[in-house]
Every structure is written in structure tokens, then in C-alpha cells.
């Protein structure tokens, strides 16, 4: 049995595997399959200041080794989250990353602030959502906006702040450096890539929202590349994700520089994916006589 525990920003995780935000709700459904205490942590569905109904359906489309979603930020709002979901979750003996978002930096800061009085372990700030004040471009696509929203949230919370980066950019390292300098304690990446599918018979986009976020195995090589680039650009720890579906994939992202790994779409293919991945990581480390998973982080040897 390899030692799978990791520590990120002072928070202990019993293992590096975390179901990603948006795929796991608040854990209630997957708890019917296995105890949540087996997980390193849980990233909860993105929460905003007020209730949001999300985008109209259809919200799901299949793609080669991947999928698109246009759920949008459907959520009950931060107050309902704190009142109805968090107390239950905090008793599950696993690290809770509260994923938050907003249409303005102020909204993000307000949401983060409301979490100060809770025992949530970390805040994961999703900067892929459109900034209404700046004409709707995503916070995550410009260094200034990324910096601004990170600063605002940084000022609102003392909790470890993980900023979740968008891959839909020319240079993810620039954004990573901007949020690092603005006070992020860690970064997580990658969020989904923007994609589209069209029903060729009806000539309508499959998603009612026309476009949606691409996730799954298809984006894995992009995630590996971006985690590696970012790990060479910043000093803060990285939580990697994007298309991880096996223990080997998780190891690969950790070699590239991730200290922990989130699992998204794979939970749909196999609800037990996070548990299976934890076991497969252990088996791999044992087979290579590696004592602790921490020792492999960032140890890829570039040519």
C-alpha cells in the first residue's frame, strides 16, 4: 500500500482524487454507490450569489471520447448551499472545495465572504464564466480580469484559494502567473474547452445553448500540456484535471506537475471511477516500488 496522502495549501487529503465541480452535485447521489469518505475531496457544483436556473435543455451532447455540456451555473445560490448542502457535506470526512463563480468580481467576493463562517476547507474560484461588467468575456481569458477577480476574492477570504483556469486562451501560463501574483494559493486546471455539435438532419445545434464545454478523454493531452506549462511558470500547487479516467491518467497529470487530480466526465461513464482510480494509482505505485505519491509530483523529465 503506497501512501496516497497529499497536502495542498496546508489541507490534508487522504488521497489526491477529487470528483470535479459540476459532475458530482453535492455528493448525495454518488453516496448511494460508496461512502464519500473514500474520496480525497469533493469539489461542489459552482455556486453563485443568487439562485440560477442554468441554460435550457438539451444540455448534453456526446463527442468522440468526450462530451459537451451547457448546464450553465444552475445552483440554488450561496445561502441555500450553506444552509442545506454544506452541513451535510462537512460530516463526510473528506475535504470540501466550494466551487464559486459570479458575473462580477463583487459577486465572487461576496460569495467567498459568506463561506468565511463555514468550515469549508478550500475555495475554488471558477473564472471561466462571463464577466458581465466587461462585456461578457470570461474572467479567465484576460490577465487583468483574472487578476482583478482573484484579488477581490482574496480580500474577502482567508481560506485557501484555488483559482480554476480556463483552457480557452492563447497563454494559460500568463493567466496562471496573474492569479498567482494576485494572491491565489493554488490553481486548478483545466476547465472545459468550448465546443459545438450540430444535428445534421434538423440542422440545429444539439445543445439548446448552441455551444458548450468539452470534457472527457478527448481533452486529456491538452490538460497534460497545460499542467506541465503552468507548473513551470508558477510556484503555487496545481490541481490537475481534464479527461482523467484511470489511475495511469492521474499519475500522468501528477508527473506533469499536479499535486492532486479531479475527475469529471469519467464519473458518468463509471460512477465508481474515482474509487477505481484511487485503487489503480495505488497498484501502479506499488508495482514501481514508489512509497508515496507525493514523490512523483512534477518529476517528468523533459527531453
Amino acid at each position, binding site marked *: 500500500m503506497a501512501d496516497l496522502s497529499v497536502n495542498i495549501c496546508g489541507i490534508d487529503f487522504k488521497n489526491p482524487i477529487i470528483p470535479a465541480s459540476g459532475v458530482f452535485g453535492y455528493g448525495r447521489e454518488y453516496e*448511494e454507490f460508496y461512502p464519500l469518505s473514500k474520496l480525497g475531496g469533493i469539489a461542489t457544483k459552482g455556486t453563485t450569489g443568487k439562485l440560477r436556473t442554468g441554460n435550457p435543455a438539451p444540455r448534453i451532447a456526446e463527442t468522440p471520447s468526450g462530451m459537451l455540456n451547457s448546464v450553465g451555473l444552475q445552483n440554488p445560490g450561496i445561502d441555500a448551499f450553506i444552509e442545506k448542502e454544506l452541513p451535510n457535506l462537512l460530516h463526510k470526512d473528506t475535504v470540501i472545495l466550494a466551487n464559486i463563480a459570479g458575473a462580477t468580481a463583487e459577486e465572487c467576493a461576496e460569495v467567498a465572504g459568506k463561506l468565511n463562517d463555514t468550515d469549508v476547507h478550500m475555495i475554488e474560484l471558477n473564472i471561466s464564466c462571463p464577466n458581465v461588467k466587461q462585456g461578457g468575456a470570461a474572467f479567465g481569458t484576460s490577465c487583468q480580469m483574472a487578476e482583478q477577480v482573484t484579488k477581490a476574492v482574496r480580500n474577502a477570504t482567508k481560506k485557501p484559494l484555488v483559482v480554476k483556469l480556463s483552457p480557452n486562451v492563447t497563454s494559460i501560463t500568463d493567466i496562471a502567473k496573474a492569479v498567482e501574483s494576485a494572491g491565489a494559493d493554488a490553481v486548478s486546471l483545466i476547465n472545459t474547452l468550448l465546443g459545438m455539435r450540430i444535428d445534421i438532419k434538423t440542422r440545429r445545434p444539439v445543445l439548446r445553448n448552441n455551444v458548450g464545454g468539452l470534457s472527457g478523454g478527448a481533452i486529456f493531452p491538452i490538460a497534460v500540456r497545460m499542467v506541465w506549462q503552468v507548473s513551470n511558470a508558477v510556484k503555487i500547487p496545481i490541481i490537475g484535471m481534464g479527461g482523467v479516467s484511470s489511475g495511469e491518467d492521474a499519475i500522468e497529470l501528477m508527473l506533469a506537475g499536479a499535486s492532486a487530480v479531479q475527475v469529471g466526465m469519467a464519473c458518468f461513464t463509471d460512477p465508481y471511477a474515482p474509487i477505481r482510480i484511487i485503487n489503480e494509482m495505488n497498484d501502479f505505485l506499488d508495482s514501481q516500488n514508489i512509497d508515496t505519491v507525493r514523490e512523483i509530483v512534477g518529476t517528468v523529465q523533459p527531453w
Partner: protein
Amino acid sequence: MKYTQGLYPIIEKKAIALDTYSFTLYCPEVADIAQAGQFVHILPENYGLRRPISIAGIDPENGTLRIVFAIRGKGTKALANMNEGQRMDMIAPLGHGFTLKPDAEHVVLVGGGIGVPPMLPLAKYYGNKATAISGFRSFRQVILQEDFEQFGTQVITCTEDGSAGAVKGFVTAPLEQFLSEGIDAVYACGPLVMLKAVAELCIRNKTYCEISLEERMACGVGACLGCACQTKDEKGEIHFQHVCKNGPVFKAEEVLF
């Protein structure tokens, strides 16, 4: 609710119409608890997303479940290519099913096309207290009519082109007849246009009606919010619900078409 995920052996495969298959799976733990109107979520090999398929038969004595599906795209094609002895990767049973009315004297089961299969477990329950009105495009699509008869259920087969069955045209004509005579409940599954027509007729006639909806799904268990549908409550307030968890069966008056 406890979900089960497992690999369940196919013990019978039958082609029952053009590109339409009936599979019987051995899965006692699911057969023990499954209810009419629930569905299973099946992973075609080498695909990333599961396919939701209604439960078309529940046999707790033999520990089997039946599903009936049509080839619509690549995933259902892959499933249709599976054979007896192979195992289907399935999460089941999912969703909440039809409300059964033990005191009902006459219910009508309205199925359209590949929406007919989920009516079968209701026919098993209601037996000769049920009338199954099934609509199809033509004789080529007609399925499962003899299965209803086996449960003692009265069968009314409709085809749009009149190429089979007693009724040429839509399911709504015979349904209106029964509604006017007075029935206890209507259950429906099929294309959206049909469901809308059925729901409107029942609401106008103040007859209890439940319909089963479809939506594209990812998790199938209520976690991803992928399968949103809008519903309205008695006060007319709009809610977002999820077909996989809150449905697939909804009360007719809840659904916002």
C-alpha cells in the same frame, strides 16, 4: 434510493421489428425493486455516456428485467449488436416511476412508437382493467401488442397510414372516446407532440394523467443537472427539475411543454 451498477448477462435477445430489439437481462437485485416507469442507464462499449432505456418488463421471480429499444444512433446500434451471454454495463433502477392506483377500475396506457415498451409493466399490474392504445407510423413499427394481450389488457392498435391495427390515425381519437366515457387514469409515453396532445385532453377532462419524458442525460442519477426540464406547480411557479431523478414520470399538469 440505492443505485446498483453492474454487468448483467443477456439471457434473451429478440429482434421484434425493424431495427427494434428486446433484451432480457438477468439482474435479480434490480428486478426485486424496479418499478413501472423507471429506467436503466446502459453503457455501450467504448462510449463515454450511458443510454437511458425504460424498463419494459420486471420479473422478480426469475430475477430478470426486459428492455426494448430501437436503433437511433451509434450507441443503440452498439447495444443491438450485443448477444446472449454477453453482459451489459447498467446502472439501475433509476428515476421514479408511475403512480399505481390499486383502486382504479379502468386505466388507459397510451404509447407512441418506442414509447410503448414502458407501458408493459403497467399492463402487468392492471391486467384487464387497462386498455393499451398504441400508435405507430406503419405496420413495420408495430411492437408488443400480443404482450399486452397476454396480461389480459385490451389492445387498440393505431397506425398513421392504416397499414395495421383497427384505427387509422393517432392515439388521440380512441383516447378521447375513453375519456368521455370516464376513466381513472391515463399513463403515456412517446413523442413530445403526442404527450402534449394527451396531456391537454386529460387536463381538459380532469382525468389523472402521468407522462414519461425524455431528455439527454449524462449521470442519470441527479448529480450533473444535465437533463433539466421545466415544470410548474399549482401556483403556476416555474421550477427546474431533472428528468433522471424527479422523473422520467411527471404529472401531466406539471409539465411545461
